């Protein structure tokens, strides 16, 4: 009666699996804690309450979202899968950062480098004065004090002390 035993086991397995499927989440291991839910919720924004992260948003819609995260965690979904689910459902604006990082970081980086370059050029220009500038320098002798008078005085006092 080997075949009937196999049938029995298959039936049993099916029953167990079905029980797992429809049964309470506890059957699939521990219920995700609030902290595990919040860790993911922190990174999401619900369109209903813009600029409030999901983990602290008190609205009903956000509570539902947190329940979805809990359910998906209980199903064993990974963080990336959960985020992907939310993006598919509600669009990329649920993420706390634009998905295309290259664009979002590149533009300010280029602007800052450009600023740094301009400042560097400015330094160079100031350090090597042109002819006209040195002429205006002659016309204005006090324009270049040897040192900050305050520091000079301070240094002097300190020297006296020694």
């Amino acid at each position, binding site marked *: 009666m080997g075949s009937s035993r196999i049938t029995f086991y298959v039936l049993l397995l099916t029953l167990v699996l079905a029980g797992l499927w429809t049964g309470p989440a506890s059957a699939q291991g521990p219920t995700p804690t609030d902290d595990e839910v919040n860790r993911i919720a922190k990174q999401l924004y*619900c*369109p*209903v309450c813009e600029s409030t992260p999901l983990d602290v948003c008190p*609205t*009903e*819609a956000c509570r*539902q*979202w947190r*329940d*979805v995260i809990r359910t998906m965690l209980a199903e064993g979904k990974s963080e990336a899968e959960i985020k992907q689910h939310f*993006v*598919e*459902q*509600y*669009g*990329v*604006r649920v993420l706390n950062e634009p998905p295309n990082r290259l664009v979002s970081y590149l533009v300010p980086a280029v602007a800052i480098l450009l600023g740094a370059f301009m400042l560097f050029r400015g330094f160079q220009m100031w350090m090597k004065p042109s002819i*006209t*500038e040195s*002429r*205006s320098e002659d*016309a*204005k002798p006090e324009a270049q004090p040897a040192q900050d008078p305050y520091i000079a005085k301070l240094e002097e006092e300190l020297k006296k002390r020694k």
Partner: protein
Amino acid sequence: MTESTISAPRRGVPIWAQIIIWVFLVGLLAIVAVGLSRAQQGTVQPGQTIDNFTLPLFSGYELDGKSEVNFVDLRGKVVVINFWASWCKPCEQEAAELQAAWEEYQPTGQVVFLGVDYVDTEPEARVYLKKFGITYANGPDLATRISQYFRIKGVPETYFVDKNGVLQYVQVGPFSSIDQIRAQIDPLLK
């Protein structure tokens, strides 16, 4: 200022730099202007032809057995598009009226009701649909594309589109009676 008279000719801002700065400033202002005009715009206005969109439907809430509806396929019928959500309290006020209106117009075969579920979760949405006994086609607003197209300001909002796909009326906020719904659909059926 006294020095400027002493020294040789002074340079102003080079033309190319001026051009770059102006282009940059105007570009910036243009972006803000576009953002502003979007923010100022209300919903899609009556008289506009509605472009095609695709609404996937919840199982059990299909339209003619199809699990997805293309808006263009509904030409020749009056379409009532209702944005709602299960977390939206005012939506509950009109749910029964909408369903009653649907039951009234369904036999004519000339009117289609589409429920677009805005920023909602499916299990909660199903509870809501069951609670109010809603039977017309309903589906999620995936990636909020449809609501963005209609530029909805909140839920509930209802859009009445005539047989040619032209928007005829926008209801912001819930209906208080079935007559209000009839008053918008009936003229479109003539």
